[in-house]
């Protein structure tokens, strides 16, 4: 038996990578990028077996993680725990779920939100120091001056977001952290789309006012 050195492509089923850019999510709608074989509209108990649930996890855990991060604000370890618990609870309840993958995302996010409420609001947890305080911005190819400005914007946003109501912050998270359209946000929260628009507009105005105040 002789050996030959080879390079092997890695195992490649990575459904989780399909929601690849926020531009696409915006342009096409969050769920339209899922592969057709992942859609199970109308199928009964679509995630009852481990393989199907595993695919659901691969596909959605980053979305749920990001959502929890936004709701909770950090620290990362707590966010990881809640995200993990969300999927474990969903696994326990998988026989009762019926719907397509879009419904599954809403289902998971609702479980996640309840986890946040159960674990922190009921315990009257002390507020975190800074919302998303342990989240840094990735580098970009913009000029150093622009990067400084963006960093300041990010810091300011985190401080201001701390003062928003839970609903306002959740809308901010859904719109920008998950890249959803206003209509998707409205549908998920069960509120008018116009309300979403108004809250976002006010939040941006508040950011601008704060920025101008600091520039003076």
């Amino acid at each position, binding site marked *: 038996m*002789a050996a030959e050195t*080879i*390079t092997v492509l890695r195992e490649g089923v990575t459904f989780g990578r399909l929601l690849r850019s926020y531009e696409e999510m915006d342009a096409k709608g969050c769920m339209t990028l899922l592969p057709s074989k992942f859609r199970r509209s109308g199928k009964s108990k679509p995630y009852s077996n481990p393989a199907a649930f595993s695919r659901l996890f691969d596909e959605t855990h980053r979305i749920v993680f990001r959502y929890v991060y936004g709701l909770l604000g950090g620290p990362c370890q707590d966010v990881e725990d809640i995200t993990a618990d969300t999927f474990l609870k969903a696994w326990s309840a998988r026989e009762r779920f019926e719907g397509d993958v879009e419904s599954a995302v809403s289902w998971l996010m609702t479980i996640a939100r309840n986890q946040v409420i159960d674990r922190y609001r009921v315990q009257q947890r002390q507020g975190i120091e800074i919302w998303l305080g342990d989240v840094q911005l990735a580098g970009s190819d913009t000029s150093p001056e622009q990067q400084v400005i963006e960093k300041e914007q990010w810091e300011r*946003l985190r401080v201001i977001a701390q003062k928003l109501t839970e609903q306002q912050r959740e809308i901010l998270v859904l719109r920008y952290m998950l890249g959803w359209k206003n209509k998707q946000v409205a549908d998920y929260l069960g509120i008018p789309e116009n309300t979403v628009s108004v809250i*976002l507009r006010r939040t941006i105005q508040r950011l601008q006012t704060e920025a101008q105040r600091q520039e003076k």
Partner: protein
Amino acid sequence: MKGQSDVDDTALETLFRRARTHPGKRFYERMAQAPWAVEPSYISAQKRRRSFALAVVGIAGVLLFVLAVPLKSLAQQAFDYIFRGESDTVSSPVFVEPTAISPVLQDLADLQRVSQMVGFQVRLPIYLPESLQITDVNVHARSVLITYSNEDATLIFLQQSDATASLYVGATAEVEVVFVDGVTGEFVRGGWAQTERGLIWDNNLNGSHLLWEKDGVRYSLTAESGELSLETLLMIANRLP
């Protein structure tokens, strides 16, 4: 340039898109023990990344049946950098993990250090799809493997000066000869799925490879998720300094 007060919808989208929010190793380790994680195909993204870094540099496969292929057949199936087997199955692959040094590339001074280690000038792309950035650098012997990642994709850039290995692909792999970086290269899409019967080639799996050789250095540009098109890979490769 925007002023500090120019915070608008677009600026917020940009900021949040660049926010680093990834589950960590601890999370994936816990989820690997979850009740649904019973399929061999389930490997966490981090594990895949690590295993690939090791695999690309030094996987050795013992493939008895490959050696049994007639020479004429070999000549028909081998390209310059890609070797197409007679079957889509590798029933008994043997993986050899190399010893790798992993410096973190912080700046151009580090780039020079890495270049000295591998013995040739390492080239970093001046064009990359938005938000991809270096997340890992592995050096092994006379090769360097640079990983670029963002939230949604991973790009692997391997450069080696003593390349003797070919990219081994399945019999049904569709290899495309392309013009890249001023020379002729090869492109293939697909991947090996790990199953109980061994590795099985699947053209529909995510993952795409662009390979070429220039000035004695072998280059391999891999979109791990297969999300980057050939055109994008060519744009990256054609703008190397």
